[in-house]
């Protein structure tokens, strides 16, 4: 599967798309762990000091919010899935 990163997250990693290898029964948590293993610099961008995904960071799985429609971090991820992570920006 692959991750798509936007704005400050793209800048932090230098990549807009990051492909990661996952097991057959992988979850979003596994895919996120694989992403963080490749790009530990994202840890501070995504998670609060308490380890919670920041409220202002949006995670979408093939355009759907797994926290609304599924099992959140426990949702299944397939090899063809696209996961997106993005923050809002405010400049004008």
């Amino acid at each position, binding site marked *: 599967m692959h991750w798509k990163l*936007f704005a400050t997250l793209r800048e932090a990693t230098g990549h807009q798309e990051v492909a990661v290898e996952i097991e057959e029964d992988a979850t979003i948590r596994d895919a996120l762990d694989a992403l963080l293993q490749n790009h530990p610099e994202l840890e501070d961008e995504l998670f609060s000091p308490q380890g919670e995904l*920041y409220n*202002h960071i949006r995670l979408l799985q093939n355009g759907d*919010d797994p926290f609304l*429609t599924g099992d959140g971090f426990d949702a299944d991820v397939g090899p063809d899935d696209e996961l997106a992570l993005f923050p809002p920006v405010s400049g*004008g």
Partner: protein
Amino acid sequence: MVALDLDATQLDRYSRHLIMDAVGPEGQQQLLNSRVLCVGAGGLGSPAIEYLAAAGVGTLGIVDDDVVERSNLQRQVLHTEADIGTPKVESAAAFVEAQAPDVTVEPIERRLTKANARELVASYDIVLDGSDNFPTRFLLNDVCWLRGTPLVHGAVLRFEGQVTTIDPRADGPCYRCLFPSAPPAGAVPGCATAGVLGVLPGTVGCFQATEVCKLIMETGDPLVGRLLSYNAAGMTVDTVEYAANPNCPVCGTNGIDSIEEIEYTETCAIDDHCAGGS
């Protein structure tokens, strides 16, 4: 059916619109009859105001309380060196009056606040958000949603821009479905601290002006429920779909019916006690 009232000069001025099937005399008349509020006459507002005026949007409200500074001129093409120290709404109005005699400009030299937002939004058909801070953006989302006024959102940072359209009439998602609250201070920097490629708001403001024209003429597929991300460094455009959140504090089942209790500071979060129609 829109009553057509184009004179000979207008038939000439807008001829490239008039020959398009998707615009035609009726679409042009819709543009001329429309009232659009541009919040901000800066990087995003500059191209948006220029193109909306050129397109013949009949009334352009421009709200901004800033004066032109030299550091604005790298991207804010409405203003010139001679305008430094002048209120932005004044130089914007002067530009539009010279460019587009059909357009009535309503310069509003005020900061959009919780106290005046409802009154300002109320007299326009569509709002274009060209502001430069999260509190104004969340305030506009909430006010426009409650009022039923379409809002075209655009924002930029360094090499990247975001555009989405919120259309309460379509019952589509709102900005808080995408981002329930703003980042804590410093988590996502603004242009003043992180910079912005001067051309970038030109592109993004034009995306916004395009959306406004489409909404006025009721043509094409607006970015409702879609966030467009433009990366000028990679020269890529990505569109990510997002759905309405049934628990959204604004447009969800138990959403707010007033902005009275919301503090538009820091993260602009809506507490549970504000929602639920209290």
